[in-house]
């Protein structure tokens, strides 16, 4: 699964880790994050993320 980076603050969403700050369990693909999920560091919405590879 692909990692994604927040273009505003540089936080990297790693599906293998999930996002404990928002109760997202490990193994959740970026595409499957809820619509109102935000960056745990700067709180911007999903559209602010770029694929990282």
């Amino acid at each position, binding site marked *: 699964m692909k990692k994604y*980076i*927040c*273009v*505003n*603050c*540089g*936080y*990297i969403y790693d599906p293998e880790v999930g*996002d*404990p*700050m*928002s*109760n997202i369990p490990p193994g959740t693909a970026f595409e499957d994050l*809820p*619509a*109102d999920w*935000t*960056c*745990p*560091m700067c*709180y*911007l*919405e999903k*559209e*602010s993320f*770029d*694929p*990282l*590879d």
Partner: protein
Amino acid sequence: MKPSVSSLYQAIEICQDIPPLLIGERCNTNGSKQFREMLLADDFDGCLKVALDQEAQGAQVLDICTAYAGRDEKADLIRLFKMLIPAVKIPLMIDSTQADCVAAILKLYPGRCIINSINLEDGGANLHRICTLAKKYGAAVIALTINKNGMAMTADEKVETAAQIYHLAVDEHGLRPGDLLFDPLTFTIGSGDETLKDAAIQTLTAIRRIKTQLPGVHTLLGVSNISFGLRPAARKILNSVFLHEAVEAGLDAAIIDIAKVIPLAQIGRQDREVCLDLIYNRQSATDKTPLLAFIDYFEAQGDQKQQVQETRETASEKAMHQMIVKGNKDGLEDVLTILLRRYGPLEIINTILVPAMRYVGELFGRGEILLPFVLQSAEVMKRSVAFLEPFMDKADQSARLKILLATVQGDVHDIGKNLVDIILSNNGYRVYNLGIKVPAETIIEKAREYAVDIVGLSGLLVKSAIVMQESMAQYRQAKLNVPILLGGAALTQKFVAESCVPQYDQPVVYCRDAFAGLKAVRDFEQGKLTSTVFASSAPKAVSAPGPKNIEIDPTNPVPATPFLGQRSVTDIDPARIYPYVNEQALFRGRWGYRRGKTSAQEYQKLMQDTVIPIYETLKKRGIEEPLIQPKVTYGYFKCYSQGNSLIVEDNGQQYEFRFPRQEFAPHLCIADFYKSKDQGGDITGFFVVTVGHRIGQMAKALFEKDAYHDYLMLHGFGVEVTDALAEYWHEVMRQELGIAQQRPNDTIGFVTQQYQGSRYGFGYPSCPDLGAHEFVFKLLRPEAIGVTLTENMEMVPEQTTSAIIAHHPQAKYFAV
């Protein structure tokens, strides 16, 4: 002695035994991309090499032009001339219409310069200034046949304009006829434009008549314009043949790309005949026009690599469209001049320019081009409209949709709003940009005064989102009655839909970027703009991202402070800060170089070829100019928590910082990370850091000069270097407190706070209230490092940031 010009080393006659005098054109920011990029990179050695190369290729004089929006033309000219004067053996020509630039160079030039140029476009005011200088320093002057009506197109007009200039320069300013070089202007005969098909004849006739009617003067041409719009291989030949014809007509000097001149003897007879047919507009045996015959002839000669020529009806239209899409300004005015012969100015804007910008917007929307490139397109649009505006009636201006833009009260951030301004105004809308810190009352008043169709509000701070929410009722009460578009970092679709929409009667629309703003304006035009809605599939969230199930440990040790009270540091080398710059946030976020639809390889190439060079240049300028002037004031203070407050002590005074508490689990508040009085009290740190005024001032100047791309780059760089300075200084303070054992080893480590403690910026999610700045300023006295507060408690300059530093290991970011 025959009229000559000279350098430090040699004199050269303007009338050569074998004319023309060859003037190298490549040291010109407007004519040569290579030279421009070198100058922008401050690569003066590279610029010098362009000059030396032309000298080696046979140039006898060099034209030097450094005019470029956002650069200091005079400073660049002086620096370049100081390098060129000892290094180049041939005389130089100062290419500037700015009298102060011309004066500065004449003052330091050791020989006899040529000034390029004067004209009568403004009726003679600038001509007067420059002729006065020419007389004083004994310089030669190029005069373009441009009058109040614009560039002279016919031989009659060209000669008449030349005679007027002659009269002013010779009879009134006392210049000698031999001091003057008249340029009767060349227009392309390669566009298929009916009215330009005899442009070469007009120019050649003008050369003959100027030489006979104004005895003693010289003539000069920028030759390559003649073939604009044709393919490079054919251009080279046509230019050379035309140059030969011009010399036959009496041309004394030519401004050309020296490397591309082909001696006539090397051009085949048939090639020459085809060129002459085109130059003299001679119908050949077939029924083809001379231009089609020319194109077919050179087409048949191969050169498949070049794209097929356009049909003559659409060549200029397509060229203009491409120039906008590609963000290319070279030769822009030529193309527009051609288009103006066939269309009205408004027609050009509405049928060529706006659709091209719309296409650029679509490409951006599809992720096929990136924001910085859109801004380059907008620059071409802006310059085109500025060129066309003098030809427009007032009535042409009034029909456009009007939009008011403002950064809301208490907020000084305007990059987002200015990007919206750039995108809307360059898509044909009329924008009233009210600036920053605009109170709701002013917005209502101006919206009425200008009778705007839409209001757009912007703001970066958390507080600004609240201001927008709270002002909705005021707009409703004032019966503003136009849609309101909202944009800003702290806004979300959800917040707008749930907190703003219900409080106003017209559509309220969340716009995540400038293009969403453009889309909303278009929706409005089509009568289909509706308020933002938010439907979450999940149950309504009752928390925000942040630590969960956390119990703050009250037993952590209190570190020893290196001192108590305030200190400032003003001798920080920018190079110390650069390693802390969050490059991903700068490139992708601030600058908009996002991955989009490009492949990983293409993105890598974009980074290497474009983005990193810009970054490296700015870093260099940050140190050398210096754009970046880092200053810090910081301190450590005794404190204790008391409920939601932190009581900070300094010099016998107490300051109560009140912090908000989360309304959801785990109900955190910044005060929780500090010990209470009963627990023995605690210590806290604060800092205010700034990179100074200069970068903001320079960014503002770029915006005002419509240098949109460079504006975005400079502004974004300032923002991220300021953040880097905060990151750096936070680390310094952790070291001073002896809590720096855990050090992040990469940017993501800093982003996710892989260190002990946290820093909370005022105005940001954990403590949105800027009011705390009142006490921060009492504690740290940032006025001494040039930072002041606005009446709304925001810090100026914009590139400043403040924070409270908590040392508690459990202290991390959270949102209330």
